[in-house]
């Protein structure tokens, strides 16, 4: 009974406890769990972690210090595991910092490759030569600075993974049609080269050159920006491309990674691409732009693909031989007159040779086969005029087209002309030769000038002396001081006035080969002047439209 009642009272107590402390006991259980269960623990900490970090960071820097080693370790581990993911993530931040800072002057010259100096006798050519002399810059650099011409014709924004075209801009809307195919092709070519040459996945080619056209490729983690340019883009343009890619990466990262063929989300990328469609026509403004002269064979264009196949077959032994051949080839070039090799670069695609070349020197391209060089060689040779006398002589001959009866000797900056020639040829030759760089004096004292009998044959400026009778009736020997300077306009005018003796009612002017007369004069004087002005060799024409003979006997 008592046992029973004890039991009962125990149960009653239980009941009572439950009634009184139910809530508390549940909470006690929870607390117990919380202390025991790691998982729940973590959940609790998670709730306050961010706040806690914030508060602690306001107090001191201990937290950062104690976390640093762990963070370092985990970054290292992450890089070791997959460098790409990290570099992709960092690209927008790091890109600007890792600007390729290749800053040698030769690289700058590259920009102006293929700019042939049209005509070194032009006023422009002489001006540049002067500028080079004045500023102490190499002539090539002056030419480069003066002739920079380029135009961006097309811009492709390509999704890197699929090769699909995201955006395309072009000068000429007819090019739009196949832009998507070109886009895919470019990726394929880029992939192919990458696969064939280097193991690393991020080393894309940067440009392809085909004649006047250059395709510059700028690659980001998710996009490739391809730009087709005519001419030579300035270095700053490449930087512009990099910045554009970085911006696009930053702004469109998510859309790019989720890209499923729908280009809709990228319509607004236009505004980033439009500024790339630029051009620079510096020399056209000055009326200099002519069709490129055929002598621009200076530049040998290398299409990378062609030599790739050759490249793949190389054996080590062959490589040795190739190296020797190459060295010999280079020293041969260096010993050639009119060729200056300033730098040789070698990369997966072959050799790139930078320097200067006189158009009249040996064609370095044709020498390749002589040295059994099969590698792909790109020549970026800036044209220049060498001052070595054999080349100067060659240039003079090209310019003066001397008749067979004439011998030309170039020594100590003096051009000596020996033989028999017409007055017209001789006077032109004397004048023109002085414009050739490297010629300081002209000595024509040993030339027998053909009589004016032949000279006055109508219109025959370009008489071929070798078809004239072998014994001219009369020859006169001309003894002339070396022609040192060309007369100024005022000198010529003075000579004209002395020759024509105009009446006081006539005013005369002279400029650029033209003699102008205005005012009043007798018919007979006008006639006389017209017949005689050409005795002064510098005067090509005589303008008389402002002359009148009214009221004069």
């Amino acid at each position, binding site marked *: 009974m008592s046992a029973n009642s004890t039991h009962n009272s125990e149960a009653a107590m239980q009941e009572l406890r439950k009634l009184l402390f139910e809530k508390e006991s549940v909470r006690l259980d929870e607390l117990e769990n919380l202390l025991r269960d790691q998982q729940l623990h973590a959940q609790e900490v998670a709730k306050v972690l961010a706040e806690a970090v914030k508060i602690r960071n306001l107090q001191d820097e201990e937290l950062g210090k104690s976390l640093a080693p762990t963070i370092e370790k985990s970054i290292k581990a992450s890089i070791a595991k997959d460098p790409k993911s990290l570099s992709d993530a960092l690209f927008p931040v790091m890109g600007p910092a890792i600007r390729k800072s290749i800053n040698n002057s030769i690289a700058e010259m590259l920009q102006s490759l293929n700019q042939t100096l049209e005509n070194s006798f032009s006023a422009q050519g002489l001006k540049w030569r002067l500028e080079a002399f004045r500023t102490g810059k190499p002539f090539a650099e002056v030419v480069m600075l003066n002739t920079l011409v380029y135009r961006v014709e097309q811009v492709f924004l390509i999704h890197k993974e*699929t090769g699909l075209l995201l955006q395309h801009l072009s000068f000429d809307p007819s090019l739009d049609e196949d832009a998507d*195919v070109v886009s895919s092709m470019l990726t394929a070519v880029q992939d192919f080269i990458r*696969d064939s040459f280097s193991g690393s996945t991020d080393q894309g080619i940067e440009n392809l050159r085909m004649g006047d056209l250059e395709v510059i490729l700028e690659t980001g983690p998710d996009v490739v920006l391809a730009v087709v340019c005519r001419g030579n883009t300035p270095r700053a343009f490449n930087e512009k491309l990099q910045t554009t890619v970085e911006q696009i990466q930053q702004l469109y990262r998510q859309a790019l990674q989720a890209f*499923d*063929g729908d280009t809709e989300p990228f319509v607004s990328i236009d505004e980033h691409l439009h500024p790339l469609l630029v051009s620079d026509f510096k020399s056209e403004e000055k009326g200099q732009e002519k069709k490129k002269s055929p002598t621009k064979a200076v530049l040998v264009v290398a299409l990378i693909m062609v030599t790739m196949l050759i490249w793949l077959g190389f054996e080590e032994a062959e490589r040795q031989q190739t190296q020797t051949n190459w060295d010999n080839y280079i020293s041969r070039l260096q010993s050639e007159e009119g060729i200056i090799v300033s730098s040789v670069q070698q990369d997966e695609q072959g050799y790139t040779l930078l320097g200067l070349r006189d158009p009249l020197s040996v064609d370095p391209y044709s020498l390749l086969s002589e040295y059994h060089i099969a590698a792909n060689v790109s020549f970026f040779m800036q044209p220049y005029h060498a001052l070595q006398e054999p080349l100067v002589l060659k240039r003079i001959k090209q310019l003066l087209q001397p008749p067979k009866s004439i011998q030309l000797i170039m020594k100590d900056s003096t051009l000596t002309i020996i033989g028999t020639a017409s007055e017209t040829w001789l006077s032109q030759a004397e004048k023109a030769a002085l414009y050739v760089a490297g010629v300081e004096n002209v000595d024509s004292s040993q030339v027998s000038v053909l009589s004016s009998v032949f000279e006055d044959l109508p219109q025959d400026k370009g008489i071929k002396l070798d078809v004239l009778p072998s014994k001219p009736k009369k020859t006169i020997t001309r003894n002339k001081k070396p022609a040192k300077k060309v007369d100024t306009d005022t000198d010529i005018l003075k000579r004209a006035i002395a020759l024509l003796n105009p009446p006081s009612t006539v005013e005369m002017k002279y400029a650029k080969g033209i003699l102008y007369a205005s005012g009043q004069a007798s018919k007979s004087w006008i006639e006389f002047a017209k017949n005689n002005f050409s005795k002064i060799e510098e005067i090509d024409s005589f303008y008389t439209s402002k002359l009148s003979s009214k009221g004069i006997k």
Partner: protein
Amino acid sequence: MIQKKICVLGAAGVGKTSLTAQFVYSKFSEKYLSSMGVKIDKKTVEVDDTQVNLMIWDIHGEEKYKKIPSSYLRGASGILMVIDGTRLDTVAVAKDIHQRVCDELGEIPIIYLLNKSDLGDAWSINDNLMAKLESANRSVFLTSAKTGANVEASFTSIAKAMLPT
């Protein structure tokens, strides 16, 4: 406009280039010019009122020493796997490539084309093998680049398979 990259794969000489030419230019030639590298063509097809611009990568045939480079496969949304119905050995090649595609690109639509169906005499795929291919849960088309049979249908079918349903 939706763009999709597809690859035409298979052993050498099965008719990849011919099928593409038939589809894009409606042309066929008996002459065999073995492809090198990749040629890219495009054609727009309409699927359920959606224009899909197919960028078709016609890749050289897979051979022992001339494997298809991974870089060409990257980013493809669909595959046309071509078998030459007159050459049984091209089936095994297709299977190998199929495996590689799965490893590298994951699950993407793949359609089988049993090509040269016009060559009845030399046909060597029996019903048994045909049934096997079909039961492997792949779409299979009997095509002829020569007559054009089923060519349009297979390209449209891959376009459809690539669009979200």
